[in-house]
């Protein structure tokens, strides 16, 4: 993968849950790709969206804003947003910005998927 490039993969885990795996960077510029991924990941039966940050290389303050925008879209559909794979550094950023008030953070994929009921 080229540095500075973001790849986002969508996986349907069950009728009620999908994972969005982010590889590379999250900045405000990632918005079209992330929102397209959300559209792919979500339908009327989806109750949980799980973000996989295992491949996250870089996130700036614009990326934090983008996650807030995604959170709004997810909540508007009555869904839950969860995450796993955050490094200690990015966990601290979620804590600093208080995104962890609204996004369930889990240590492992298994824990996140269990919380999602997938």
């Amino acid at each position, binding site marked *: 993968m080229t540095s500075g490039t973001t*790849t*986002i993969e*969508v996986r349907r885990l069950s009728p009620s849950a999908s994972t969005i795996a982010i590889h590379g960077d999250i900045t*405000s*510029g990632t918005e079209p790709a992330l929102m397209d991924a959300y559209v792919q990941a979500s339908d009327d039966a989806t109750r949980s969206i799980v973000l996989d940050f295992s491949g996250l290389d870089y996130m700036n*303050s*614009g990326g934090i804003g983008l996650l807030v925008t995604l959170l*709004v879209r997810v909540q508007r559909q009555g869904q839950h947003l969860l995450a796993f794979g955050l490094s200690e550094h990015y966990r601290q950023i979620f804590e*600093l910005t208080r995104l962890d008030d609204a996004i369930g953070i889990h240590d492992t994929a298994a824990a996140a998927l269990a919380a999602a009921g997938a």
Partner: protein
Amino acid sequence: MTTETGKPSGDSIEATPSEATPSAPTPSAPTKASNWAAPVSRLEVGAVPTAALNLNVAGRRLAGPVQGFGQLWQKTYRVRLTGADVTPQAVIRTWKEHFGDFWPKGNHFYGPLTSLQPGEVALLDLAMPGKMTLSTGVLVIFADDESFAFMTPEGHQFASFITFSSFADGAVPVVQIQALLRASDPLYELSMPIVAQRTEDRFWNDTLQALAAHFGVTDTTVEMQRVCVDRRRQWRYAGNIRQNAAIRTTLHRLTHPRAWFHHRGDA
């Protein structure tokens, strides 16, 4: 207002910075832990300048858009420094060193004497309509060579993230302010369509005009874009009004008139 183009490819999507438009500053180097502030449970304030009022900052928690009450807005202000021989990095360096100097008259930013760094708390006195003043603050949550960002404490007018950045559009340096904000409580929300939106727009318009003038660009137009991201109010945060900094500042002014005039006299 997109900056990268998403290209569906099976079940994966790629965003490539090389496709970015001018509104998409992209990282030039991997983030370092030192670019971000460490988590804080409650804000701490060091030495308080004589003219500043630490009434609504020390002991407060940070509050971003998730913790705000009102509708969620994304506001973008941008100015092109056409003709200025300056790099985005130099713009940001100057802005971090002289942040409050570009603010409109009557507003005060009590920040570090050198340059804004992640983790630093700045106290603010903001001029409000009716000759009122709002004493509040911000925490610098992020800073690198091309951008820096603030987050607001409980009681501030807005529960927000605000990012200040600069990037090149061809040969032209561009300066941008982007805020993601909710009014913190119902009282602030009531004021949004009446005065708060316009006051905010005028404030950042004037700031960008002053910054552009510093770099010798006087014939400038500030582009503004306001998008309502979420029309819903978060009623579970209506109780934020207990920490409303405008109310607390006004009460302080009424009950401490001598201290107030002392502060203002030194400002």
